[in-house]
């Protein structure tokens, strides 16, 4: 009996010792950097913890911003939970974080609700992240394809079912289109990418795409689906004859990206084109002066613009409770929209940097953030 009890005790001791050993050997310095911050920070020195939640599309960019921002401000911790845009806005409205990442601007209802944490002027939407959406296809031997908006809409509605359809051939003289069934692939989860793509189809091909823009793909349409951008890209890569819409950053080299018709010409996807399309867009109506929610122009005539883009926002308060928080949020958002921040995001997440005109507007909006009176 004694020996037995001793055995139990020693087992406990072993577990405890193991826990101690474990807690001694971890390191937060994964990159092996020396830790001394380069003194590039301009403006007031800020410290504190910044908490945000929201869009998964932004998560790769936020990793890069976090790294760049904390390198310049060693006293700051930025944490971001990529739970999804809707959940992120909800968290923000509840007052649990200082900012939200969202693929859609705040709705009127949400702006009203945000007044309880942000004061009478409510919240601001600041466009910070532009991601071009590619129409990616898997066709052996075909690398370039011209697709008109009506054709894209018909393919995704299941009205064009074969790659050698005359409607596709008419725009692609000289391309050897195979006799192959088209498998349209869409997102199974609700997403900002779906919302922007259906918005594009709705505006650019109104006669074919009669559904309103929605973050849920219309359930009645035929086709395969997969979860997340990576799931869609994997399905297209594995299936010959498949076509899908996806954030450009995840589209691998083996897939072709369609050129879309803008005005009278065929426009290939490019970061500059995406930034241009956003720059040409008008602000959404009925918003406060510094709320930069955009109403994206899906039918530009300028042939340097690529209209299938996703714009993701940072939602911030127009007023915070104390000066320290105001300084922290301003410093963070100013870094995000700055040239350095946008280049870091482009390097890490392959996003399209903001145009300088839009970045300047962003900066004005950010500088208007004040202490709650």
């Amino acid at each position, binding site marked *: 009996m004694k020996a037995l009890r001793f055995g139990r005790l020693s087992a406990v001791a072993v577990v405890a010792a193991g826990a101690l050993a474990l807690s001694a050997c971890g390191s937060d310095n994964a990159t092996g950097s020396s830790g001394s911050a380069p003194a590039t920070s301009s403006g007031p020195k800020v410290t504190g913890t910044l908490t945000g939640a929201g869009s998964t599309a932004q998560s790769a960019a936020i990793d890069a911003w976090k790294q760049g921002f904390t390198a310049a401000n060693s006293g700051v911790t930025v944490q971001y939970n990529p*739970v999804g845009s*809707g959940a992120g*806005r909800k968290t923000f409205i509840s007052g649990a974080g200082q900012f939200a990442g969202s693929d859609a601007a705040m709705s009127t209802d*949400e702006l009203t609700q945000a007044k309880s944490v942000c004061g009478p002027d409510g919240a601001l939407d600041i466009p910070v992240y532009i991601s071009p959406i590619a129409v990616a296809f898997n066709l052996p031997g075909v690398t370039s394809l011209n697709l008109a908006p009506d054709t894209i809409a018909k393919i995704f509605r299941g009205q064009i079912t074969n790659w050698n359809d005359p409607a596709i051939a008419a725009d692609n003289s000289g391309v050897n289109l195979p006799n192959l069934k088209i498998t349209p692939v869409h997102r*199974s989860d609700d997403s900002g990418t779906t919302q922007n793509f259906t918005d594009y189809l709705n505006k650019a091909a109104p006669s074919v795409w009669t559904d309103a823009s929605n973050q849920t793909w219309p359930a009645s349409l035929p086709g395969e689906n997969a979860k997340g951008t990576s799931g869609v890209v994997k399905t297209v890569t594995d299936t010959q004859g498949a076509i899908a819409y996806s954030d450009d950053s995840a589209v691998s080299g083996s897939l072709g990206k369609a050129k879309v018709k803008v005005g009278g010409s065929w426009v290939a996807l490019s970061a500059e084109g995406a930034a241009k399309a956003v720059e040409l867009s008008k602000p959404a109506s009925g918003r406060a002066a510094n709320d930069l929610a955009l109403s994206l122009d899906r039918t530009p005539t300028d042939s340097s613009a690529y209209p299938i883009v996703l714009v993701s926002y940072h939602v911030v308060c127009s007023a915070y409770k104390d000066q320290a928080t105001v300084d922290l949020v301003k410093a963070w958002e100013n870094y995000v929209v700055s040239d350095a921040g946008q280049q870091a995001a482009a390097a890490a997440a392959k996003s399209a940097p903001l145009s300088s005109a839009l970045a300047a507007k962003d900066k004005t909006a950010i500088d208007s953030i004040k202490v709650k009176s």
Partner: protein
Amino acid sequence: MTRTVHETARATKGRDLTATETKTPESPGRLRALSSRQGAAGDKVFSGAALAAGAIILVVLVAVAVFLVVQAMPALLAPQSQIANGEGFWPYIFPLVVGTIIAAAIALLIATPISIGVALFISHYAPRRLSQILGYIIDLLAAIPSVIFGAWGISFLAPALVPGYTWLSSALGWIPIFAGPPSATGKTLLTASIVLAVMVIPIITSVCREIFLQTPKLHEEAALALGATRWEMIRMAVLPFARPGIISAVMLGLGRALGETMAVALVLSSGPLIASLLQSGNQTIAAEIALNFPEASGLSLNTLIAAGLVLFIVTLAVNLLARWVISRHKEFSGAN
């Protein structure tokens, strides 16, 4: 509530009692005192603590139910044209309920006989040394995160099943559930059910194995001594003894199959309700919640929670039904 706290306090005291008592050398006089006075107190404390624990579970469950109802109410009370893109709540939830039940039922149909077979193999067929290792491996498999099962399902299982589906639809296509044309990616409800079956097999097997091992040795030996073959011994001694336990194990598996989110969300190419198991389509409640929750806000969030409430009710109904079926067989148990 105050009563619960009180009882917990007494439970702690009771535990102290045990500690002091076991440490002191046990003289006969002390023993007598224990069994008469302190023992009686210990009995009360212990039964009280047990009762309190049971009550806590009910309280938690009621809290979860209240939470679900409160959060789901807006979706149930709002004008139906605002729910699920104007579809209305009930037309929206009905296909999901059917999909959930079909997926869980197929998973259990596959998993139950196989699990019982495996548990029997480990407990009564395999050599003892081997059986210990096998039991160990099976327990291990219960721990693989569902994301991994999902990833395995899309990258390995679904493509591997496509030829089988093509054959099924050509040979048995006249049965509605095998109607073609089969999916080109293999991401169908049947694949999802098979992944679910693989996920619940370790759970059912693990519980069944423990129960089979507890069969009274005398019963087994008596059966063998009467000249029974091994299978007859299992049928006469092991299975009747284990029946309630097997049912418990299946219920545990059912819970997992009904509530599984991530694996189904990754494997199934969802869509509207269709009879064929070989085409992409159908959806389960849990996967629907997981897929749409991140982007949901306002009323659509309430709709998803209402869907969670419906799953809760479906689980309740399935359990009641199973209980009603079981209650017609008299249970055997060592404790009754």
